[in-house]
């Protein structure tokens, strides 16, 4: 296998890994909980800024993880409590309220960090030799880490009933309460975990991506399309969606350029949205 195909394979793996990481948070908030969180991208962006902050303070990159957890978690709790909970029965209004929240978060970050590009240094982004062709160590680490996280999540999801309880609660809240499941607290926990995961993906990607307040929208749209195509509520759906969307984008881009890659993703999503309209949002 010459180094060319290895490089292509690694590039595809990197694309799928970033897509899976940034979609994970939304898979819980939108996939399990059914909340259309249009501010998902902004939480990813805030994770990246956590990395910028710790580097400004001269702390090692790893300390950005606790910072992101605290910031995204605190904000997530407040947002679920005062913005999402009053709107649970109104999906359109949730969509609009979280869109307004996204605008607000963008402006807050702009106020604190200014609009300029930020760069997060990491020693690991320097290349190492893979079958003769240089490849950034950090990306390798990211791919391996994502595989580990996904495998761990798969096992945990099968073992523990947390994911099941959230899905059960969303499908039939009365029955869930009858079985002693505190639906309010569970909804809050699920939302907070979802946005914290989004923030953590931002921290992990910070050294590789451009960092500015406006990057949230791209991650939001990609994540939505992955879940729409892959199907909601199951990890299999998440993997399926990542495979289809990531694969289609990568292949079409290499053939016909990035714009048609993005157009193909849009068309696939439209077809899937059209094919199963009720399956997607059948929240009784």
């Amino acid at each position, binding site marked *: 296998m010459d180094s060319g195909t290895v490089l292509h394979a690694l590039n595809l793996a990197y694309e799928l890994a970033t897509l899976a990481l940034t979609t994970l948070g939304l898979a819980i908030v939108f996939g399990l909980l059914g909340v259309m969180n249009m501010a998902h991208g902004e939480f990813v962006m805030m994770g990246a800024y956590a990395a910028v902050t710790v580097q400004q303070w001269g702390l090692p990159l790893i300390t950005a993880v606790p910072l992101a957890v605290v910031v995204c978690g605190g904000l997530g709790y407040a947002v679920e409590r005062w913005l999402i909970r009053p709107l649970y029965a109104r999906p359109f209004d949730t969509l609009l309220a979280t869109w307004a929240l996204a605008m607000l978060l963008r402006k807050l970050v702009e106020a604190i960090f200014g609009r300029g590009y930020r760069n997060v240094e990491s020693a690991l982004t320097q290349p190492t030799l893979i079958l003769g062709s240089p490849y950034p160590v950090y990306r390798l680490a990211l791919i391996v880490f994502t595989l580990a996280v996904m495998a761990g999540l798969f096992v945990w999801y099968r073992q523990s*009933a947390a994911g*099941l*309880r959230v*899905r*059960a609660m969303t*499908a*039939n809240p*009365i*029955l*869930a*309460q*009858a*079985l*002693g*499941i*505190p*639906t309010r607290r569970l909804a809050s926990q699920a939302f907070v975990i979802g946005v914290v995961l989004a923030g953590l993906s931002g921290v992990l990607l910070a050294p590789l991506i451009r960092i500015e307040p406006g990057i949230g929208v791209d991650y939001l749209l990609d994540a939505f399309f992955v879940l729409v195509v892959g199907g909601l*509520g199951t990890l299999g759906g998440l993997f399926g969606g990542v495979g289809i969307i990531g694969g289609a984008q990568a292949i079409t881009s290499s053939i016909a350029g990035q714009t048609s890659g993005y157009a193909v993703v849009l068309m696939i999503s439209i077809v899937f949205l059209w094919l199963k309209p009720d399956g997607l949002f059948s929240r*009784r």
Partner: protein
Amino acid sequence: MSLTFTNIVCGYGDTLVVKGVSGQVQAGRALAIVGRNGVGKSTLLKGLAGLLPLAQGQLIWGGRDITGSALHTRVAQGMAYTPQDNVVFAELSVAENLWLHLDDRDADRYTELFEQFPLLARRQSQRSGSLSGGERKLLAFTRTLGLRPKLALLDEPTEGVQPENIDRMAHLIRQRKSTGASFLIVEQNLEFVSAFADDVIVLDHGEQVLQGALADLGRERIERHLVV
């Protein structure tokens, strides 16, 4: 632990369906609430279980006033409620339905129940949406007993269930009663009720038209309120 409910009034929005019902369930005894469709049986049970706010009335469980406490806090206090319909999470498997709310994995919650209802054991990995109406009721009944409640509130547990399984349900209820558990069951099937019930309340148009020990009232008198 005994449940006492006095002057229960509840309904939906401004239309009050249940107009003042009182009664008691002692430990180890079973109370059946019977009556024709639309007389307010389910509404009463929802009020007692904490699903519907009570316009009036009081609920004492084990000496404590739990009138306003929320539905999801009742399981921890030993009360388990099974609704009349939408009784399973259709998307999840039979096994998932049985275990998702439990933190422990101790299998003997269900060993005896699986012996009585082998079909549930057989179809554990199937989507519970694929079960028939009666099989879903059986799953709900099994899950409720699996919680080992001190008081089980069941809303028409036998609807659509095969006759031989109904007898096993009655047998299980009698067995659990002997261990001190109590039951409050809304039912239309008089045969099933008379297999285990100690006391009966007959409802008509939301009011108590008849109550007392099943033995004293006798089946014919009750049947007159039910039959066509």
